[in-house]
């Protein structure tokens, strides 16, 4: 109970920091804090495997990718580090619109009775919560993923492959294609000539 509210405050504060930070690097740090708090929230919700992949995939892979891109783009041109900073005039009516939307959502949520079954955790058909092999454990998740949800899992693999191909096409080597052996020979010849020139680079 206490844990939820502490984590909620951390998540809200870091989300606001992420959106309002001037430099993208600070946004990444705020997002890291947000994701860590979210992983802890997953733990309180008995979603152990989700907490682990949240840390590994988001904090470990995606945020490092963001950091690399920031470092790459900042290296050549100076102005990028500060980032575009001006707030367009249209931002204010849009912000008002967002606040109205948020107020409406809060009002609707307050009026809605959210239906959840009256399950006592200890009386669930899956067994007592918190012990191995029951709801939220890695075994439970894996069984569901590889039996009932095998096709979505395979489609996930396809999506990742499409993403990899797309990234290589977009940001990969921009030189025209040449057969591998010839290009290797070219590189070797250039290195030989560079050495013969006398190592002035």
């Amino acid at each position, binding site marked *: 109970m206490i844990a939820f509210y502490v984590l909620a405050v951390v998540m809200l504060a870091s989300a606001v920091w992420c959106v309002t930070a001037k430099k*993208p690097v600070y946004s990444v740090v705020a997002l890291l804090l947000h994701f860590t708090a979210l992983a802890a929230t997953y733990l309180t919700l008995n979603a152990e495997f*989700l907490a682990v992949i949240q840390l590994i995939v988001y904090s470990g892979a995606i945020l490092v990718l963001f950091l690399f891109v920031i470092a*790459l783009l900042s290296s050549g041109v100076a102005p990028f580090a500060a980032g*575009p900073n001006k707030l*367009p005039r249209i931002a204010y009516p849009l912000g008002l619109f967002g606040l109205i939307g948020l107020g409406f959502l809060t009002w609707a949520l307050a009026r809605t009775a959210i239906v959840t079954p009256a399950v006592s955790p200890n009386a669930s058909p899956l067994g007592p919560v918190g012990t191995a092999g029951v709801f939220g454990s890695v075994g439970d998740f894996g069984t569901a993923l590889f039996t009932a*949800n095998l096709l979505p899992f395979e489609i996930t693999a396809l999506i990742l492959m499409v*993403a990899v191909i797309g990234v290589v096409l977009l*940001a990969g080597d921009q030189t025209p294609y040449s057969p591998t052996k010839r290009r290797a020979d070219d590189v070797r010849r250039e290195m030989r000539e560079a050495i013969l020139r006398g190592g002035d680079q």
Partner: protein
Amino acid sequence: MNAMAVPIANYVGLSAVIFFIGLAGVVVRRNPLIMLMSIELMFNAANLLFAAFARAWLHNAGHIFVFLVITVAAAEAAIGLAIVVTVFRTAKTVDVDDVALMKG
């Protein structure tokens, strides 16, 4: 500890507020990197809701869905960052207002 001592409405409210913060980030900020990070915020707000309802119903379909969303988010981040790098190579700017190549 009984996690459902926290009523589900609190998770719904927290998720809604984080989603709107992310939406505001996408709409207001002009830096594509911060816009991408705001999109990640929105993904995670939805994920939190999936996990909370999975816990409320004691059914792990929500966990499976979070797994799929994380995969799609990873693919989206990779493609988005590749596009940012490509645009920066050609346009030499990262202000999305200055990138108007496809404007009619």
